[in-house]
């Protein structure tokens, strides 16, 4: 008997239902470019809140540096992350995470699921935590982080963050060799749905954008963030920060940054994030 293959979209559905059962509120993806689901405002501001947080959501994530014109088996300009944030942290969270992987076809002991020490950090958010990259048969499929610091400051109560790399999970669960071969749904392949964008974005990331224009855009976003923060509009400022962060990623993919220039831009990006988040925290405390 042929084994039923769970498609990419069905997998998202299974994850949403799994986490819904765990008491999570399922949110929608945010409609601004971002490099990872962590940047979703609900995640960032949820982490900063001082009460219960239980949310999960799909978030398309754009990483210009990962653009490969659709030729790499598992790396693409825009992949999909499924993000889960929990506080308080259940005592058996590691087990729950494994159960969630089992639910989408990554089962122990059929598959070698391994927790490899990888303490996550995001320099631009000034965020860090202890955790692992979770590998299934050697491929990284999930980032598991005990989130402990944001905007450079320790959190009063830690949060657990799970970030599933959906394309890679699907590669394993569907046992495919290339992301293009994945079943997007029961009728369509990933390639047909996504590759048109991948090609164009890859060209743009490596050769398309004008470095000068991006640099100016970066400066403008930075200016706008300060302007909005003066008016205490932290969420609007944070949206500008997301754009600034994506602009930085585009500048970086152009490959014309020295180590020092990169460090300077990251410092400026982090400063903007810190300002937005600190204003929010001050508001919360009031």
């Amino acid at each position: 008997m042929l084994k039923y293959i769970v498609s990419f979209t069905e997998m998202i559905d299974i994850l949403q239902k799994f986490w819904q059962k765990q008491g999570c509120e399922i949110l929608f993806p945010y409609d601004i470019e971002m490099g990872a689901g962590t940047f979703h405002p609900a995640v960032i501001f949820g982490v900063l809140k001082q009460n219960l947080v239980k949310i999960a959501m799909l978030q398309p994530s754009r990483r210009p540096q990962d653009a490969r014109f659709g030729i790499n088996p598992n790396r693409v300009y825009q992949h999909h992350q499924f993000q889960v944030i929990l506080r308080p942290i259940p005592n058996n969270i590691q087990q729950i995470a494994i159960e969630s992987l089992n639910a989408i076809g990554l089962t122990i002991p059929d598959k070698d699921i391994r927790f490899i020490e990888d303490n996550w950090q995001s320099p631009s958010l000034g965020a860090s935590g202890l955790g692992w990259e979770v590998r299934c048969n050697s491929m990284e499929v999930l980032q598991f982080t005990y989130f402990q610091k944001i905007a450079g400051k320790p959190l009063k109560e830690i949060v657990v963050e799970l970030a599933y790399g959906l394309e890679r999970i699907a590669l394993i669960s569907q046992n495919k060799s290339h992301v293009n071969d994945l079943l997007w749904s029961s009728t369509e392949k990933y390639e047909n749905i996504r590759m048109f964008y991948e090609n164009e974005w890859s060209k743009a990331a490596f050769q398309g954008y004008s470095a000068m224009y991006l640099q100016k855009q970066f400066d403008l976003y930075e200016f706008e963030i300060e302007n909005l923060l003066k008016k205490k509009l932290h969420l609007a400022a944070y949206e500008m920060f997301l754009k600034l962060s994506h602009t930085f990623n585009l500048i970086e993919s152009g490959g014309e940054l020295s180590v020092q220039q990169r460090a300077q831009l990251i410092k400026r990006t982090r400063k903007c994030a810190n300002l937005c988040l600190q204003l929010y925290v001050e508001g919360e405390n009031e």
Partner: protein
Amino acid sequence: MNNQNNLFFFVMYEEIPVLAQQNVLQQVSQLVNDWFTKYKVEVEVILHVSHIRMLVELPNLPQTLHQKDEIIRGPRTHVSQNILNKFLDKNNCDMQFVFEKDNFYYAVKKYDMLNLQNEIANLCKYILNGLSWSTSMRWNSEVYWSRPVRCIGAYWNDQHINFDWYDLQSSKFMFDSLLTRNIIEATSANHALSQLLNIGRYANHEHRKQKLQKEIDTILLNTNYSLHDDADEVINEINYIVEAPYVYLVKMKKSFANLPEIIRRTVMVQHQQYVPLMNKKTLADAFIAVANYDVNKDVFAHQSNLTLEARFNDANFFWTEDCNSSLKDYDTILQKIEIYKNLGFVYDQKMRLQKLVPNILQDIYKNITNHDDQLILCEKALQYYKIDLPMKTVYEFDSLEGEIAALYAEHFKKYEIAQIIRNYTNIDNFELYFNTQQFDKELKNKICNISAAIGIASRMDTLVGFFGVGQMPTGSSDPLGLRRLVYEILQLLPYCKVSLVDIEKNIYQLYQEQDIALEKSSLISFIDQCSKRHLENLNYKPFVITIAMKYAIPCRLYVSNKLQNILFDDLHSSFVTLYNRLNGFHISHSDDISINLQSLYDLIFQDEITFQNLSDLLNESFCNMNEKMSDKLRLQDNVLILQKMCKPIHNFIDFCFIEKHDQKHQICALFTKLQEILFFYVAI
């Protein structure tokens, strides 16, 4: 009977990171012995650790513990009874054990005999609280853990000990793993080890390593493959991240043979923890992957292959793009990459080096009339300077920074340039190359001279620049790694007959051409401090360093500059000149002191050097020198001086032969150090 008691204590973590596993035995032993110190009991600690569990066994413990009486000084004797009572209450002492001495009350504090069994819970908690982790986080108001603890338990002589630790209660059993949670009931460490072994789990680090090694050896035995030199490192790493190792041979479907071998090995070892295999002298189309369960072999092999293929594909994507870019393309990008704010662009630095390095080479070759080919090679090598910065492969493989530029040169069959790049970017490479005998001597000298000249000049340029824009390191902070740069210059100097002062002067001038005004006294002082530290790191005795600094500082790095004179072909004359100069003598012929340098070199290069023949040679040389010096100078204390010179050299030989294990390395280290010491004793 009293010392036949056994404590078994176990902890399961979500994960114990590698570094923590490496340190945990020392930490637990320290904690246990600290706890027992007041009872004057020494305890043996047996510990087994894997990435998820720690099994601690304390055998042969006493049944009871007794803390020695303690004498506590109390208040002065003239105080009221009330105050004395308060003192006794506070210290839990009895009035019958109070005595007076020198106008003070003293109380003898008596301790009850303790039943150790009743203290086990406290001991276990003491260990758990005391473990400190290099990377940790606060899990509650008091405890820092590396990762959450999920299961604890203890047995005293097979009897379970009940205790709580924060939200955990001691358990009677542990699990096979925290994910599968099959119960393992064991009352001692050996019992636990054997039960775990029955289900293929190796909680003991050494047993696990043996199992890994045995399975790998079996694979090698049944194939034509062998292990690469760096296999040990990755096997060790794997041993820290699995408990139930299952070793699989995986054949690659696609080999990516066009990718340089070092890139492929880096992917396997650093990114994936796969063990690369060699087929004769090249990387095989197969590797070893280790799973942590008895998984479906075919699926595991297929997906490991897929993961590696994706990684190789990625590397190939960047590498192909890098190779398709020309030196001119890289120059265009280097013109836009800033070194640092106000310091101009990397391309400017490249231009400065193109003026500066040939001057250094002119100094090196001042006695050789025709060295045009060296200058041409140098100019070509400098065209590759810093091209790795804009190369895309470096983004994925930052550990290969520098090496990537060499690989690029090799890709275009510029092998000499590749070696020069390897040498000036990585001093260890340089020294390895310098000390290898298999190359043509003339070519090797040429490559070494150019490498050292570029290496020193580029580092000096960076130093001058950063000091020029006020980015000097402070006592505690050196974010730009400038100290490391100075140490590297000091390492390179002996290989290059140049004056650092001249290089510096030239760089100042080149910066001034760009209207960058620089102030240099702080840099001079910084280099001096680093020189001192460098000598300390080389284990010179303090008085030698004091003298070195006294003589060396005014002309900075004088020692190293002189040292390189000694190191190369002028040992005789340098030795004599220095000796004479410092002693006010006026003899200048090297024949006057005959340390038979040629014999020494011959021994070294023929690999025939031994402690005995080196020692004999030196003795003979010094006797010879002594005779000649006495004869010519009639200096009464000459013999004493020479004896003084011999002693530390012999001491050093002893030291060196004990410290170093690798024969070649040993000899080179010995030889280098010997010459340094010779110099210092001459300088004294």
